[in-house]
């Protein structure tokens, strides 16, 4: 059982995850931000490895990816930076990014390098179910990594069940069909979608992401799922100031309190 699976054993509600892009706002920020987030009370982390063409992302995460690449961030460097991860951070950590950098690194090499530094799971939104199942699944499983899939309001029940069967961490429930950084959809239709997913009695916990930016949206999402993920709002906060580490405790407190 990896740290992520252990977390979901212990904690069932109000799980808070934070996404940030490695190498942003400065190249050496990655581990410092991770440490600060654990201290501030985040339950688990998603560290983004940047890609030049992040088509599921809105302007804030696009910008952080571009800056990170300009700062010199690569997967190779990221794994070097994460060598001390487990000396400093004990909560679960996932890597999140697009398929192409992972394919260039080699999926087997990528999974092994991730496991070696103590990563618990991976989210690659443009890695299709079919290719995962047919080609790459064993690389993830052999290295004890949870692979996380996305589900949207348009995903059919049948497909959600298939995704559940292939998942061994959690299901990333999108709050709407949208790119990252939009505001939360609070319509009845969306409530019905959460209820529909819940009624399937899935094996995996549900974590809601996209559009979660503050206490209100976090609490609303937590009503329907085991927790929620904040991405763009956090990335924006640390990008707006030089003294970014000092703003992290308050950012988390405002969501938690």
């Amino acid at each position, binding site marked *: 059982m990896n740290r992520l699976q252990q977390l979901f054993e212990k904690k069932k509600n109000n799980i808070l995850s934070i996404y940030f892009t490695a190498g942003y706002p400065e190249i050496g920020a990655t581990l410092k931000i991770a440490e600060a987030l654990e201290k501030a009370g985040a339950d688990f982390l998603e560290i983004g490895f940047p890609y*030049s063409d*992040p088509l599921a992302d809105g302007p804030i995460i696009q910008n952080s990816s571009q800056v990170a690449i300009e700062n010199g961030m690569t997967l*190779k460097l990221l794994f070097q930076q994460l060598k001390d991860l487990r000396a400093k951070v004990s909560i679960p950590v996932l890597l999140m990014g697009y398929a192409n950098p992972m394919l*260039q690194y080699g999926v087997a090499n990528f999974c092994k390098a991730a496991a070696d530094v103590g990563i618990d799971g991976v989210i690659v939104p*443009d890695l299709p179910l079919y290719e995962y199942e047919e080609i790459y699944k064993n690389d993830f499983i052999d290295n004890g990594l949870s692979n996380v899939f*996305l589900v*949207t309001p348009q995903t059919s029940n049948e497909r959600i069940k298939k995704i559940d069967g292939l998942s061994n961490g959690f299901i990333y429930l999108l709050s709407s069909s949208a790119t990252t950084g939009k505001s939360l959809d609070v319509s009845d239709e969306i409530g019905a979608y959460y209820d529909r997913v819940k009624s399937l009695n899935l094996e995996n916990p549900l974590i809601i992401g996209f559009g979660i930016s503050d206490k209100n949206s976090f609490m609303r999402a937590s009503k329907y799922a085991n927790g929620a993920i904040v991405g763009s709002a956090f990335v924006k906060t640390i990008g707006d100031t030089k003294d970014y580490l000092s703003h992290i405790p308050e950012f988390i407190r405002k969501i938690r309190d």
Partner: protein
Amino acid sequence: MNYRVNENGYYGDFGGAYIPEMLYPNIEQLKNEYLNIIAQPDFKAEYEDLLKNYVGRPSPLYLAKRLSEKYGAKIYLKREDLNHTGAHKINNTVGQIILAEKLGKKRIIAETGAGQHGVATATVCALKGLECVIYMGEVDIERQAPNVARMKMMGATVIPATSGSKTLKDATNEAMRDWINNPVDTHYIIGSVVGPHPYPEMVSLFQSIISEETKKQLIEQTGNDQPDYVLACVGGGSNAMGMFYHFLDDENVRLIAAEAAGLGVNSGHSAATSVLGKEGVLHGSRTLLMQTDDGQVVEPYSISAGLDYPGIGPQHAHLHKVKRVEYVNITDNEAMQASLLLSKLEGIIPAIESAHALAQLEKMTFKPDEVVVICLSGRGDKDLDTFMKYFKL
């Protein structure tokens, strides 16, 4: 050898649908329904009617006598430049707009580089009275002002892509983001044989009219539908796929695709993907693309905006790998000289894109009775500014 797509959406090692879950329902709907829809008699009737009476097809297959004399072969030009809107792009947009209507879509989005596909999309949207949103790189909007004006005149909204390098690949990203955010009422008309399955296959099918007509015209004019050589230029590769489509299984026909070498393949300013590209994923399919060791997409360069794309369609990647098609490189200067030559010898000013295929003639030797077909994919009107600067006209 099988050159076609398999049931999983792959051409050999290339293709597939590397898309985020948000796009899955749209792509799945398209995949499940398009073959059925385009096989229906009412679709076929409307498509054929529009191609004939609106686009102006069949486009002529013209024996270029003075060009033939110069190179010592029988050189035929497939005149896609004479289509309405001035290029082959409209073959695809006519097909996709009828398809979009049958799928019940109300809003059309598209990406464009030089603006030719944007114009061809705005055109068919005006024809059908559908809302049209075109994404175009901020840099390209400045470079291609007349095409932006054309799109606007036909009622399209042109949205500048301000992310990344602000060119075609970023316009494509923005169009995909739009589709993610508008999953129900919108159809995305991709302009080339790129993107997730079934786009590469669907766009090739709509462009395959080029080789279908060519074969008939060759029989009428030469009594034989098997030329010795077929040439086309490749950016994403849609005119080339259309030109090669019905010749793929004719193994005695040599197929040659001309890529843009820009200032030279190894100059750092090139779009020669078959040489510089490595296998990876771009815009939803596994293909060859220009990228760094870390998997970041590299910005390509060509004097011709239509070839200025960092990848090639997955079927091209496959045809390259199995060596069915020979991929060659043509520099900016070679293409510009070929544009001038065709203008002077035949009174036809080609698009700079198409001139890349013409320039390959300089590098070949022929026997006098050999038959060569070149896809003249577009006309040069849009490139006048570039010609004026380059040749100091």
